[in-house]
């Protein structure tokens, strides 16, 4: 390794995860932290810790100047951003490199291209990767909208070219609705974003969320198969698995090959994930976006391939060539991860920070629990509610679900509400067991099972 001391610009379970990988690579670690995280497990584990600001993330974990000052003060020579916070901030990536430090992630330019939805869509098309059918660029008049909608097929989404985060999206079921909604959407986009430009995209109604893990060294890229994260609540993943519950082998090969092609086309360095929608009914898949960072659910890929993704991303960003060829990557068995959050499923997922009074971590074969909890730890209210990720591996999907149910039974987190009971119910659900779900399956299920969530409250 060229680098010797890694600064971890994140918190929670992923900071702990990064410190573990760094230590195995023989690196020293610097954990930056807010005033609310002085007692965090990551701070305790790291070789050095530096306070970078008050609890509010915008003044600490998002404070680029303070993070760079901490690196200078401690002599760190590399920065790992984890996920969230500054992980996909191209300006931060540039600033880290401008300060002479190694950035454990792709170049700022790669983050910019893949972070812009229109640019990412263009890059995907150029690499021969299918995208959700839609208009090529923006549409300014209703006649053109009618022609495009007819050719891609209803229902269609009308989106603001300048929009983002789901704002200003309308769905038209037929041509009459399109005629009525198009001018409204244009006027609203003009008012909200100062730009009335719109574009159309086909609505993929019953799709699986399938994502492909890739690793690149800037020249060559490999895939590490797919994950399926179709069980979502409010677009947040709840239960993730690898491989997909249902993806046919021929489709797996196509998806994974397309991901490698796109990664190599943009000269990608580090760990990344290409997200797709896969329509069971038609057998079509569509690229939706690329995440240019390590993802929360990366452990399921590690469990089926045996590759430590965090270690490998540090190595390639340190300038080393990928150590694996595509043929080296084999998939064995099935892995599932569930997110254990400080939320009460019986009370509409109301978050509940608090002090950990009891912690019993499941063990035994094929079980992993990535967490920042320890008994007596005070979970602060200022950040997201993720407490830990329970991951299991077994020879096949049915056995993995059984093992997950067993591990959930062992898990006890005392002192605050958790989502454990939700996962216990999911593990027992016949449709989950059959892999018979899509991205809009969980929300109605939660409504129908509200009374059961109440009863199983732990």
């Amino acid at each position: 390794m060229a680098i010797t001391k890694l600064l971890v610009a994140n918190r929670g379970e992923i900071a702990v995860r990064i410190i573990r990988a760094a230590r195995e690579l023989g690196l020293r670690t610097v954990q930056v932290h807010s005033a609310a995280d002085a007692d965090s497990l990551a701070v305790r584990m790291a070789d050095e810790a530096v306070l970078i600001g008050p609890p509010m993330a915008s003044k600490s974990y998002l404070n680029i100047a303070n993070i760079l000052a901490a690196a200078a003060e401690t002599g760190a020579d590399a920065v790992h951003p984890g996920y969230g916070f500054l992980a996909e901030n191209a300006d931060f990536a540039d600033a880290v490199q401008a300060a002479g430090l190694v950035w454990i992630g792709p170049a700022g330019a790669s983050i910019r291209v893949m972070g812009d939805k229109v640019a990412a869509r263009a890059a995907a098309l150029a690499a021969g990767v299918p995208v959700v059918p839609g208009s090529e660029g923006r549409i300014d008049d209703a006649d053109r909208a009618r022609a495009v909608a007819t050719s891609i097929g209803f229902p269609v989404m009308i989106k603001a070219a300048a929009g983002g985060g789901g704002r200003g999206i309308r769905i038209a079921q037929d041509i009459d609705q399109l005629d009525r909604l198009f001018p409204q959407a244009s006027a609203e986009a003009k008012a909200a974003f100062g730009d009335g430009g719109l574009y159309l995209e086909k609505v993929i109604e019953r799709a699986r969320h399938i994502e492909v893990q890739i690793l690149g060294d800037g020249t060559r890229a490999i895939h590490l198969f797919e994950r399926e994260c179709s069980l979502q609540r409010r677009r947040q993943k709840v239960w993730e698995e690898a491989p997909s519950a249902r993806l046919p082998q021929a489709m797996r090969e196509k998806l994974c090959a397309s991901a490698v092609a796109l990664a190599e086309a943009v000269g990608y360095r580090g760990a990344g994930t290409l997200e797709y929608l896969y329509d069971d009914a038609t057998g079509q898949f569509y690229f939706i976006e690329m995440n240019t960072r390590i993802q929360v659910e990366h452990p399921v890929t590690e469990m089926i391939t045996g590759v430590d993704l965090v270690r490998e991303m540090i190595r390639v960003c340190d300038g080393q060539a990928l150590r694996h060829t595509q043929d080296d990557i084999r998939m064995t068995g099935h892995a599932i991860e569930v997110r254990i959050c400080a939320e009460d499923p019986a009370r509409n997922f109301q978050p509940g920070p608090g002090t950990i009074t009891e912690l019993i971590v499941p063990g035994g074969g094929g079980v992993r629990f990535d967490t920042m909890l320890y008994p007596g730890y005070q979970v602060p209210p200022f950040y997201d509610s993720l407490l830990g990720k329970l991951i299991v591996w077994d020879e096949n999907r049915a056995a993995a679900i059984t093992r997950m149910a067993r591990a959930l039974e062992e898990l006890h987190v005392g002192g605050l509400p958790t989502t454990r009971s939700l996962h216990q119910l999911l593990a027992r659900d016949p449709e989950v067991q059959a892999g018979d779900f899509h991205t809009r399956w969980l929300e109605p299920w939660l409504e129908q099972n509200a009374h059961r969530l109440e009863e199983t409250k732990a």
Partner: protein
Amino acid sequence: MSKQILSPLPGTFYRRPSPDQPAFKEVGDTVAVGDVIGLIEVMKSFNEVQADQAGTLTAFVAEDEEPVMAGQLLAELG
């Protein structure tokens, strides 16, 4: 004796609905029962702080965008 509005939850206190909007209430404003005087962000979830008594706002004790504990004094009514 002055009436107090306490934080129902631990988290971050906000006096404005969003950074580019004016405060829910200013000192000197009249407050009715049920009026929103601020928000508490708990683990990325936003919860309204409603007045449980009526009166005139005499002081904000907690600062905008500052961490607060459950039960901490946020504002006083006269």
